[in-house]
C-alpha cells in the first residue's frame, strides 16, 4: 500500500484495495487459462489431426475441427504389429510394477522401522543415486545387460527398473510416521516382522503403495531410450519403441496416420492417469515436501 497517496480517504483506500485485488485475480485467471490451454492444445490438436481427411491433413492452413475420418486409425493399425507391441508393453509394465512395489516396500519398511548398523550409510547411498544421471551409466549398463545375455528379452526391460527410489523414500517416510506402539502390540501378540508388514503395515500403507505403483506404471509405459537400446525384434519391442520406429519409417510422410498412432498409444496411460490423477499429483507433492 506504500504507493498510495496519504491524502486518500479511508473509503477510497478500501475501494482501491478492492479493485487492485480484483484486477489481480483477473490477471491470474488470464495467465492460468492461457497456460492450461497451451498445455492441452497440442494434445487436442493431435486428436483432430488424426481424424482429418487426407486433403485437410495436407493443407497449409491449420484445421482445428475434426472430419471424423476414423479410417486413419484402421489404416495405421494395419501397417505395424501394434497388438504385439501393446502386449509386450502390458507384460513389461505389469511385471515392473509388481517387482518395484515389492522391493521398495521391503526396503522402505527396513529403513523406516528397523535399527541396524549402516542404516544411515545405506540410506545416503540410495540418496546419492539422485545425483547420478542414468544417461551417464548408459554404456556400462548396456554392457552388463549384454554380458547377462539379456539383449532383446523382457527381463532387460523389467529388472533394471525393479526398484523405485522415490517409492522407497515415500514408503520409508510413511513407515517412519507409523507409531512404534503398533509394532510393540503386535509383538506381544506373537507377530513376526514379516507378519506385521503383511497384516498391518502394508495395508495401512495402501495409499502410498498406490502412488508408487502409479509412478512406476507411467514411467515404465513411457520409457523409451532403454527399451530402444535393448530390443531389436518386434517380439519384445514395447509400444513406445514401436511408435518411434513408425515415426521414422512409414509414418514420416503421413501426418494424420502419425497423429492416429500417437493418439492410440497414449490413450492407455492417459486414461489410467485421469482415473488416479489425484493420488498421483498428491504423491508427487508429498515426496517433494518431505525430502
Amino acid at each position, binding site marked *: 500500500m506504500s504507493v498510495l497517496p496519504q491524502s486518500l480517504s479511508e473509503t477510497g483506500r478500501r475501494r482501491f484495495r478492492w479493485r487492485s485485488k480484483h484486477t489481480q485475480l483477473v490477471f491470474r485467471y488470464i495467465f492460468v487459462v492461457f497456460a492450461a490451454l497451451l498445455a492441452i492444445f497440442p494434445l487436442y490438436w493431435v486428436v483432430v489431426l488424426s481424424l482429418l481427411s487426407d486433403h485437410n491433413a495436407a493443407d497449409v492452413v491449420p484445421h482445428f475441427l475434426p472430419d471424423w475420418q476414423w479410417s486413419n486409425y484402421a489404416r495405421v493399425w494395419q501397417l505395424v504389429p501394434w497388438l504385439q507391441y501393446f502386449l509386450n508393453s502390458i507384460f513389461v509394465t505389469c511385471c515392473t510394477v509388481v517387482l518395484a512395489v515389492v522391493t521398495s516396500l521391503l526396503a522402505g519398511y527396513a529403513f523406516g522401522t528397523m*535399527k541396524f548398523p549402516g542404516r544411515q550409510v545405506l540410506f545416503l547411498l540410495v540418496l546419492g543415486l539422485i545425483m547420478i544421471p542414468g544417461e*551417464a551409466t548408459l554404456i556400462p549398463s548396456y554392457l552388463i545387460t549384454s554380458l547377462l545375455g539379456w539383449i532383446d528379452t523382457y527381463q532387460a526391460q523389467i529388472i533394471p527398473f525393479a526398484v523405485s527410489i522415490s517409492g522407497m523414500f515415500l514408503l520409508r517416510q510413511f513407515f517412519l510416521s507409523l507409531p512404534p506402539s503398533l509394532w510393540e502390540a503386535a509383538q506381544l501378540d506373537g507377530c513376526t516382522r514379516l507378519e506385521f508388514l503383511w497384516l498391518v503395515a502394508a495395508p495401512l500403507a495402501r495409499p502410498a503403495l498406490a502412488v508408487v505403483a502409479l509412478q512406476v506404471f507411467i514411467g515404465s509405459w*513411457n520409457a523409451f531410450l532403454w527399451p530402444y537400446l535393448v530390443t531389436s525384434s518386434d517380439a519384445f519391442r514395447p509400444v513406445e519403441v514401436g511408435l518411434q520406429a513408425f515415426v521414422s519409417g512409414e509414418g514420416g510422410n503421413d501426418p494424420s496416420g502419425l497423429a492416429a498412432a500417437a493418439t492410440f498409444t497414449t490413450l492407455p496411460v492417459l486414461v489410467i492417469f485421469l482415473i488416479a490423477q489425484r493420488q498421483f499429483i498428491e504423491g508427487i507433492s508429498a515426496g517433494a515436501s518431505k525430502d
Partner: protein
Amino acid sequence: MKQDVAMDMISSREKTHSRKWSIRFSTGQAYLYLLPAFVVLGIFSYAPSIFVFYMSLFNWSFLSQGAQPFVGLTNYDYLWHSVAFWQALRVTLLYVVVSVPLHLVLALFLALCLMSGIRAKAFWRLAIFAPFITPLVATTAIWSLMFDNYHGLLNGMLHLFHLRSIDWLGDPHWTLFSIIIYTTWKSLGFSVVIFLSGLGNISPSLSEAARIDGANAWQILRYVTWPLLMPITLVVLLLSTIDAFKMFQPAFLLTGPAGGPGNVARTLGLYLFSEGFSNNPHDGRGAAISVLLFLLVFTISVAQLGLTQRRANPLY
C-alpha cells in the same frame, strides 16, 4: 537342589543366547529386506557407475571381441582436443542456462497464480500437468508435426497472421530454442505441482499477519512467501538443473542422433550416445564423456545441496 540350580543356569544361558541370537537375527533380517532392492541397484546403478570410470581408460568397443586395449587417459586427451566435445559442452551449458531459469520462473509464477482464490483449481492443475504424463515419443512426434516447416501448425498460425514462417527444427538459430519450447511445455507441470505443495504448506496466517501490518501483495510475496518457499525452490532448482544437464532424449527424438543441422542441439548426453551406440562405436570415449557428465552433475548437485543446507530455514 544342585540340579535345579544347574538347570536354571543352563536355561538362563540359553535365554541370553537366544536373545542375543534374536537381536542378531533381527539385524540380519533388516539386510534381508534390503537385499532385493540393493541387488537390483547394485547391478544396474552402482556397478555401472563404477565401471564407467574403468571403461573410460580403455579403447573399448562393443563390436570388438576379446580383450579391450588399455589406453590410459587417451580418451580424455582426445576429448580435450576435440571440437565436437567442446561444442557439446557449450550446447549443454547454453541449454541449462536458458531452460532452467525459464522453467523456474514460469513454474513459480503459475503456482502463485493458482495458489488461492481460483475456481476449479484442480482442473487447471490437471491441465497444466497433463503433458508431463504423456509419453515422450508421442509428444515429440506431435511437436515434430507442429514444428514442421511446410505443414506444421506453428507455421500455419504464422501464415494466418501473414508472418514469415520459421524453420523451427531446421534453422540452426532456432533448433535449440525449439527444443527448449518443447521441454518447457513437457515438464513445467511437474514443477508447478511441487511449488503448489510448497505454497500449500505455508500457513496462511503468516501472510494474513503481514497484511494486517500493512504489507501489500508484492511485499508479502517478497518478504514472507519467497523466503519460506526457499527450500522447495531449491528442490525444484536441483531437479530441473540435473534434468537439464542430462537432457538428450528430446533432442534425439526431435532432431535425430546428430542433433540437428551443424550439431547445434548435440548435448553431452546426445554426444555420448552417438559415440557409444553408432555403427562404429567408441565406447571407451563414450564412457569418458559419461564420466565428465557425471562429475559435472555431481559437482553442481553437491553445490546446490550445500546451498540448501545453509538456506534451508531462513526464518528460524
